[in-house]
């Protein structure tokens, strides 16, 4: 592996306080230098980045790859390709596979399969409890030793306060966050959308915001008690965000992520009963959506994560009540962030890169999210001005369940580079430098 020079882009690297026109030199798959006027040597792969944003490779910390078990929906290969096309160089995958990733053989399979098949880096998240049953802790030490970067029972909330407490205490020894889907099932059982005006109009069973908030409150109190580390996935209500703010003010170690659909859509989108608007947590009210945008701006929300949840067409082409929860997101997440957050003027590019790269890498302690010399040569190159139309037929993902089909979004993923190799677009390289040029 040789040298790659990214010339003339707007380099945004919050870790090193850079937001300026720079060149980036990658040597042997690692960042060598970030500076002005770097010269290409013969044989260097040169990518002209005029007018582009050059950022540390993006990290999607909440993805369902479905392999092993439901390879008809997604595989580690197709999910990895979707991530690359969406501008991500690393992803963390949830343990709700079949079998569940609660055991070293599954973790080893995922990491080995990722090395063989995925163009991007894949970090497994292990199960908090065996079989995601919420009863007995899985072998968390073993899972972390083999590469798991966090623990979660994914869509199944840990209902028992005792088990959640023990998970927070036990995970402290391995410095991984406990990621608990916040939902009191007794309050939301049977619900298929947000409880509110639109659930009343549509006659669909609602899930109240309180079902999420009570669980977050419990988890925050337990985190304070145990000095553990809590990460709240796909936070979705205004009060949940207040709870996180209040916890931080008390010095409790809690982080949170939001999905692009929760900052882009509201429960009004359910009108028409399109099952691609059915996800858990559900799309919330406009007040909640506005509170999410405010929390993205003020820093309460640490990261954006897609909660990429591929489902087959025939599973979604059913009555709303019986359709599975979830939408794909790897190939629309960055575009929605560029359009809805940056384009709309809510945040600047530095904050955008923090949300998509720096912070998720920090929460999961991944060797990513920075362009410091010696760091992995993982780069996302974006256009903030080019328009992209979301066309599910072009998705690399095996599934098409998106509510954003046909959306025109200002922004584009231009190149995704992993370890100094272009992984998106596939089989596209920069030009080879033939002679020394200097600036």
């Amino acid at each position, binding site marked *: 592996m040789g040298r790659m020079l990214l010339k003339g882009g707007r380099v945004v690297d919050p870790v090193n306080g850079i937001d300026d026109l720079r060149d980036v030199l990658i040597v042997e798959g690692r960042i060598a230098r970030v500076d002005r006027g770097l010269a290409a040597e013969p044989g260097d792969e040169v990518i002209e980045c005029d007018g582009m944003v050059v950022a540390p490779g993006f990290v999607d910390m909440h993805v369902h790859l479905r392999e092993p078990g439901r390879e008809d929906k997604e595989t580690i290969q197709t999910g990895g390709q979707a991530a690359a096309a969406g501008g991500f160089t690393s992803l963390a995958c949830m343990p709700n596979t079949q079998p569940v990733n609660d055991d070293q053989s599954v973790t080893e399979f995922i990491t080995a399969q990722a090395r063989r098949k995925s163009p991007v880096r894949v970090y497994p998240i292990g199960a908090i409890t065996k079989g995601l049953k919420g009863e007995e802790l899985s072998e968390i030490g073993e899972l972390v030793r083999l590469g798991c970067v966090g623990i979660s029972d994914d869509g199944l909330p840990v209902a028992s306060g005792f088990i959640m407490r023990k998970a927070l205490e036990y995970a402290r020894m391995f410095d991984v966050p406990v990621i608990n889907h916040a939902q009191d099932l007794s309050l939301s059982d049977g619900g298929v959308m947000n409880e509110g005006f639109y659930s*009343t109009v549509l*006659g669909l069973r609602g899930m109240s915001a309180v079902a999420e908030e009570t669980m977050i409150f419990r988890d925050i109190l337990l985190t304070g008690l145990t000095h553990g580390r809590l990460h709240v996935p796909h936070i979705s209500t205004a009060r949940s965000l207040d709870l996180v703010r209040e916890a931080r003010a008390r010095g409790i170690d809690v982080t949170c992520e939001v999905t692009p659909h929760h900052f882009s859509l509201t429960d009004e989108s359910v009108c028409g*009963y399109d099952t691609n608007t059915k996800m858990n947590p559900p799309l919330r009210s406009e007040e909640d959506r506005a509170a999410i945008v405010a929390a993205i701006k003020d820093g309460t929300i640490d990261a954006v994560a897609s909660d990429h949840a591929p489902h087959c067409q025939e599973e979604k082409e*059913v*009555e*709303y009540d019986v359709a599975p929860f979830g939408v794909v997101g790897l190939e629309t997440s960055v575009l929605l962030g560029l359009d809805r957050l940056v384009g709309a003027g809510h945040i600047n590019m530095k904050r955008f890169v923090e949300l998509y790269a720096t912070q998720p890498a920090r929460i999961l302690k991944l060797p990513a999210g920075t362009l410091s010399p010696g760091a992995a040569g993982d780069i996302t190159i974006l256009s903030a001005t080019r328009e992209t139309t979301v066309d599910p037929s072009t998705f690399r993902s095996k599934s098409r369940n998106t509510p954003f089909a046909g959306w025109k979004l200002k922004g584009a993923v231009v190149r995704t580079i992993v370890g100094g190799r272009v992984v998106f677009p596939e089989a596209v390289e920069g030009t080879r430098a033939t002679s020394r040029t200097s600036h």
Partner: protein
Amino acid sequence: MQLRSPHLLGIESLTPEEIALILDTAESFAEISQREIKKVPTLRGQTVINLFFEPSTRTRTSFELAEKRLSADSLNFSAGTSSVVKGETLLDTARNLEAMNPDFIVMRHGMPGAPHFLSRVCRSSIVNAGDGSHEHPTQALLDAYTIRNKKGKIGGLKIVIVGDILHSRVVRSNLFLWQKLGADVTVVGPTTLMPPCIERLGCRVSHRIDEAVEGADVIMMLRIQMERQGKGYFPSVREYFSLFGLTEERVRRASPDVIIMHPGPINRGVEIASSVADGPYSVILDQVTNGIAVRMAVLYLLAGGGEREMAA
């Protein structure tokens, strides 16, 4: 004037003019059911499939009679006797029925939005005969027809609807309709059976039936499903009846010419006293009679008919 959509999925998407068109058309059809030969050739050669995924006697019979009196060929398909029990999806069921080229599918389904889904994948006209807790448009139309018949108008009337507001499709369709026509509406029921933000559909909310029925022109009672008892919605039928049941004493608080309505089937002694259900102000059986004319009007208009070329 004609209806804008080939489907009747709900009241929410209808204009006040379309509602008036359906009610006016129903008036011309009502006379047919009084004739010795209760049949006109309006839908001769057209096929209607009554696709019922939930048990229903009243609505299905009413549609079937409406279809027969319009000379349509109709057939009943109920979930218990079909491949649905073998695990066929709604989409496949719909595609199979479509392959037989029906002109209408009248559907009753336990899940909200099921007819909307069908309307996206079928060429036939879809008529919603009740989808879960969402809408039951022909019920609201026959209720409106009955009110208009008895009162001469709907706008400005004081209407009270009492019962399980949370789970009722009849409530939603009626609220959409009454809001469009400008009635003064109060919904009454236990706090545990009241959906959030219901007042945004243009009604007041009350938990005291005695106050709510004061001076009412129309009182509509809803069936209370026994299975809600003991699931946290209300503690006992006995207490429900004492708090919300319609008794003669309560009727006396209403306007002297009040009419009492109920979409049926009624539970005597649960939500309504027998003497009220059978009393002189009760129009419960008129509702059933009017249902046929209203459903004839709906099918006729969906088939492309307009009020000027009335074939009756």
